[in-house]
């Protein structure tokens, strides 16, 4: 809501700088979006009379004038050609500062001295018109300040009105609000006009769609001066408030709307056939609007029609047919309220939001209609010479009445956390238009109907609190009555993130929606795949699918980093993945019901469908890591760390100690020979592996080694609960063993086999070398295993030898391992 301060001063007196005004509004009422200045910010504009006017000798497009400023004559260079000798013009004097901050100086323009400037309407902040110099009439006396007639500069504050306060979409509401803040009075203009115009009752009024139109008033204003422009003061205000001045009739309706917040529509009475009908749209009905577009109506849209055709899509926009135009002399004025939700729906259906629809959709107060009608009638008779009909046609079957809301001061003190006196609460509410009654600690307020947001005690308490000032509320802390804390899962997830960061990775957060190519490029679009969750209205095709894995977003990020010159790096993300999960057979209706109402209908006496099964989407938290290229650069004494299967696997082992790895079963986007499914006990925890080269290429990572893993966040155990195991102070006996086995023998299997022997002395097995080359036959490899044996007492060589022999035998039987000599 743009509020020109000179207009606001019509309703109340205040002596405040604009900064203080903005601060007061901010702290007690509404946020201020901005402060604008129009016209001349500082300095003087006087009336001049053009004495001579002719072309500039050195410039085709410029003119030069001699102007009498009342006793002295000055030379002014002008860009517009419309002044003529004898014309009165506004002249801004050198030294003045314009709204945009430029300071006017005496200047030479193409060799000619120019003293000040003759001004257009735009330069004076009257309208957007910059077509020529504003010509003043004879009532402006030469040499006198123009400001005696109208303000030559304007300050406008733009209030960001919250949706619960449609009353602040009118100057009067803003004035009431400011008066309440300042604890002062305000005044409302008293409409006055002459009646005796042509009777409204020459026309009919029929409201068919009563449910969509709580109130409809129609009054005729005849004898209008055709083609007239509104007076300067009115155009100026309409313009400053952000609307375009058009003609006297339209400007007067807009002016009354800006003042009251109530949209007003004017029909050309000569074009209305028989009468006004308020009805629903008809199937196949079309209407061509003022903006030139033709719209199809439906039966949920409200139309203001005459007996023959639709004239207006109610509350949204009028048709060309019956609008007031330059030739209008007889007008029917509509002041009405429509069902807000219906207007919202219509404007959304049509994709057409107008100033009026924005007001109606919040739900306006039908009782404002009376004053708005009086006011617009008064303005029309004043600025367009109209005569107002004696009669008004009205439809208002169920008048809205004020309501009473009780207010307990004890409750106010409780909610606000500060002292509130009864007298003060009563005074504050009264300043908002409430009639306050009650006694002592129990007040009650009769709320004016334009404050539909004040329904309950808490609503009144808010008003009292903000007007007293929220700065008066002392800071306090509630006494903690319960221990807080993260859940074990949350602690675990946080630890996972810390551990990955400590491993040198960077935490990324990427969008969970992506293009369809994600699943294609990851080879996840096959027949057996679960498919993806679709966004019905993505911002673009690039955000159509919800990710079934965190991987693609991180791959895109890695590729992007490569584009910008990175040699590689490690990224991780902890986030959700999504999979479609259609409701069980026959429960589609139940699912929709649940999603819309939160309620689950019982299937039988004790069978209730699982709520999760009705969600339609299965959502899981995952930890994903992508290692790409050089994860960590080498140093002068350390080798670089390159992305690879074992680097990724090591991180998996850090996050999920005791995980087992099943080769050959990982998803298709991984290198089939360098990947594994990760198991946490019997639960599938995720996968790890190098990226399939084809997938690498699709993501723009070809030529880089890329390894990745993804795990269920909930299964990670980076810091398992410790459990003490006793130990004895007896030296342990290490032994090494190198065996030759076929290349295909998995080292993990060998370790498992050794552990499977169940030796009580064996406390550690590890692989410390794997060798393939000239020392072993083609197709074979040498695997070096290290063992640590520990007994209750110092073990003898013979005792350890027995164990080693069992190991050798087992490895020989199971894997054909030969001890390497």
């Amino acid at each position, binding site marked *: 809501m743009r509020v020109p301060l000179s207009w606001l001063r019509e309703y109340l007196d205040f002596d405040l700088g604009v900064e203080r005004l903005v601060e007061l509004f*901010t702290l007690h009422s509404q946020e201020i979006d901005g402060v604008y200045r129009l016209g001349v910010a500082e300095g003087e504009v006087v009336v001049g009379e053009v004495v001579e006017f002719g072309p500039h000798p050195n410039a085709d497009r410029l003119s030069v004038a001699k102007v009498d400023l009342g006793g002295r004559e000055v030379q002014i260079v002008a860009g517009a050609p419309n002044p003529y000798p004898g014309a009165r013009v506004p002249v801004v004097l050198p030294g003045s500062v314009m709204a945009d901050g430029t300071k006017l100086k005496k200047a030479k323009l193409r060799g000619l001295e120019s003293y000040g400037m003759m001004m257009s309407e735009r330069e004076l902040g009257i309208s957007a018109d910059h077509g020529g110099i504003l010509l003043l009439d004879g009532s402006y006396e030469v040499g006198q300040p123009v400001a005696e007639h109208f303000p030559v500069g304007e300050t406008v504050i733009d209030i960001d009105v919250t*949706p619960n306060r449609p009353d602040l979409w009118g100057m009067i509401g803003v004035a009431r609000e400011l008066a309440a803040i300042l604890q002062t009075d305000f005044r409302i203009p008293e409409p006055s006009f002459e009646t005796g115009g042509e009777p409204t009752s020459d026309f009919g009024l029929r409201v068919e769609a009563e449910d969509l139109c709580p109130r409809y008033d129609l009054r005729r204003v005849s004898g209008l001066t055709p083609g007239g422009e509104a007076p300067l003061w009115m155009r100026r205000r309409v313009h400053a408030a952000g609307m375009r001045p058009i003609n006297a009739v339209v400007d007067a309706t807009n002016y009354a709307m800006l003042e009251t917040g109530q949209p007003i529509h004017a029909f050309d009475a000569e074009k209305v056939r028989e009468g006004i009908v308020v009805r629903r749209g008809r199937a196949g009905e079309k209407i061509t609007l003022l903006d030139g577009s033709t719209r199809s109506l439906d039966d949920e849209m409200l139309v203001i029609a005459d007996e023959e055709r639709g004239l207006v899509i109610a509350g949204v926009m009028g048709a060309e047919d019956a609008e007031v135009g330059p030739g209008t002399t007889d007008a029917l004025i509509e002041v009405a309220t429509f069902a807000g939700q219906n207007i*919202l729906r219509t404007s959304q259906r049509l994709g057409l939001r107008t100033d009026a629809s924005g007001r109606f959709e919040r739900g306006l107060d039908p009782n404002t209609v009376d004053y708005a009608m009086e006011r617009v009638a008064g303005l029309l008779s004043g600025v367009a010479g109209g005569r107002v009909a004696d009669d008004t046609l009205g439809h208002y079957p169920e008048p809205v009445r004020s309501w009473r809301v009780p207010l307990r001061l004890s409750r106010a003190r409780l*909610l*606000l*956390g500060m002292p509130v006196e009864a007298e003060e609460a009563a005074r504050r509410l009264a300043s908002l238009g409430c009639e306050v009654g009650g006694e002592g600690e129990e007040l009650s307020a009769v709320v004016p109907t334009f404050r539909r947001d004040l329904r309950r*005690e808490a*609503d009144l*308490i*808010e008003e009292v*609190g903000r007007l007293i000032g*929220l700065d008066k*509320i002392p800071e*306090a802390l509630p006494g*903690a*009555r*319960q221990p*807080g*804390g*993260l*859940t074990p899962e*949350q602690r675990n997830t*946080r630890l996972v993130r810390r551990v990955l*960061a*400590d491993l*040198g990775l*960077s*935490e*990324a*957060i*990427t*969008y*969970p929606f992506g293009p369809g190519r994600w699943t294609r490029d990851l080879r996840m679009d096959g027949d057996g795949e679960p498919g993806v*969750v*679709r966004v*019905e*209205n*993505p*911002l673009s095709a690039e955000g159509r699918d919800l990710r079934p894995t965190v991987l693609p977003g*991180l791959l*895109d*990020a*890695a590729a*992007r*980093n490569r584009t910008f010159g*990175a040699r590689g790096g*490690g990224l991780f993300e902890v986030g*959700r993945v*999504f999979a479609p999960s259609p409701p069980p057979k026959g429960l589609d209706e139940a699912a*929709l019901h*649940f*999603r*819309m*109402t*939160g309620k689950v209908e019982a299937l039988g006496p004790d069978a209730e469908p699982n709520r999760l099964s009705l*969600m*339609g*989407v299965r959502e899981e938290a995952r930890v994903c890591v992508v290692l790409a290229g050089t994860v*960590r650069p080498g*140093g002068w004494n350390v080798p670089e760390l390159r992305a690879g299967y074992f680097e990724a696997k090591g991180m998996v082992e850090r996050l999920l100690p005791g995980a087992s790895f099943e080769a050959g079963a990982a998803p298709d986007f991984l290198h089939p020979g360098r990947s594994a499914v990760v198991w946490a006990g019997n639960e599938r925890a995720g996968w790890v592996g190098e990226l399939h080269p084809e997938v690498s290429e699709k993501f723009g990572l070809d030529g880089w080694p890329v390894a990745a893993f993804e795990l269920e966040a909930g299964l990670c155990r980076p810091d398992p609960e410790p459990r003490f195991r006793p130990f004895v102070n007896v030296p342990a006996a290490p032994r090494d063993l190198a065996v030759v086995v076929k290349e295909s023998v998995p080292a993990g299997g060998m370790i498992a086999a050794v552990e499977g022997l169940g030796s009580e002395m064996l406390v550690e097995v590890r692989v410390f070398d794997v060798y393939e080359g000239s020392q072993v036959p083609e197709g074979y490899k040498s695997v070096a295993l290290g063992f640590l044996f520990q007994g209750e007492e110092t073990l003898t060589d013979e005792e350890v030898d027995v164990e080693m022999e069992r190991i050798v035998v087992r490895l020989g039987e199971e894997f054909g391992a030969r001890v390497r000599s």
Partner: protein
Amino acid sequence: MTATDRIEELKNAALAAVRAADTTAALEELRVRYLGRSAELTEIKKSIGKLSQEERKGVGRSANLASREIEGALAARTDALAAAEREARLRKEAVDATLPGVPFPRGHLHPSQRIIDEVVDFFVGLGYGVAEGPEAETDYYNFTALGIPPGHPARTMQDTFFLDEGLVLRTHTSPVQVRTMLSQEPPVYVVCPGRTYRRDSDPTHTPMFHQIEGLAVDRGLTLGHLKGTLAAMARHVFGEDVNVRLRPSYFQFTEPSVELDVSCFRCGGSDAHCKVCKGAGWLEMLGAGMVDPDVLEEAGYDSEEYTGFAFGMGPDRMAMAKYGIPDLRLFFEGDLRFLRQF
């Protein structure tokens, strides 16, 4: 030559040799030569038994004295040489101490997550629990349960991503609060951090962003408790010196509703060209309010017995302010040049 003279001679020779030795290895050789099993002095000692009673005493004593003297000299010389040698070795072992150490690279946590962790830790310290909920949320929990039924104007203000019928990507974390209230009796103290989604994309809006909402429901909670709690939170995140102010506002689920501004932690309002607050002196930090009685009743709480406050903040914007990040879009690009700064 008497045995005693010979001993004296040997001793002098040994001491001279010790003085002349210049390595610990040479000293070890001298020890063997003069004191070893087959050294002459040792032989003399062994043969003492063959001497007369009278001679025995004198020779024995001088032999022992000589041995001790030689040992002493050897030890002293060894110590001196060892120290010198150790020093020489350490000199040789010196490295270029200005070369970088073996890297143990630090990883990086996302700036939004840093703020979320800080805020969550603060509230956990006040006795709050932490609740999470689905990002693909039902229409009911995201809207209707919060007083925004179908057709309500507020629905259009939150440009929503729609999934399957009746499902949306949650536009705020408020549904988590609803779910919490439906599953728990007062007192409730909970914060709900998480990702949220709106159909919006420009330099200051991304289609995904984070929210942290919080809810406290208990007997006797006031707007003053809200103010005190959030002021302490602001000081925890932005520093002890910041002030807060409340402004009236409007939200669907609170009454009274307020917004909380934090005084500029960079300039405190003293710099008209401040990059953080743009000269305003205040930063808009969060929206909050006393939980609307209807919302309490909807959750089955007695709104006469219990009051509560709720708040919601944007950790991404808090991170922008705290770390001086100019563009929200940077947060979600996975760009290492960005991530490695945190």
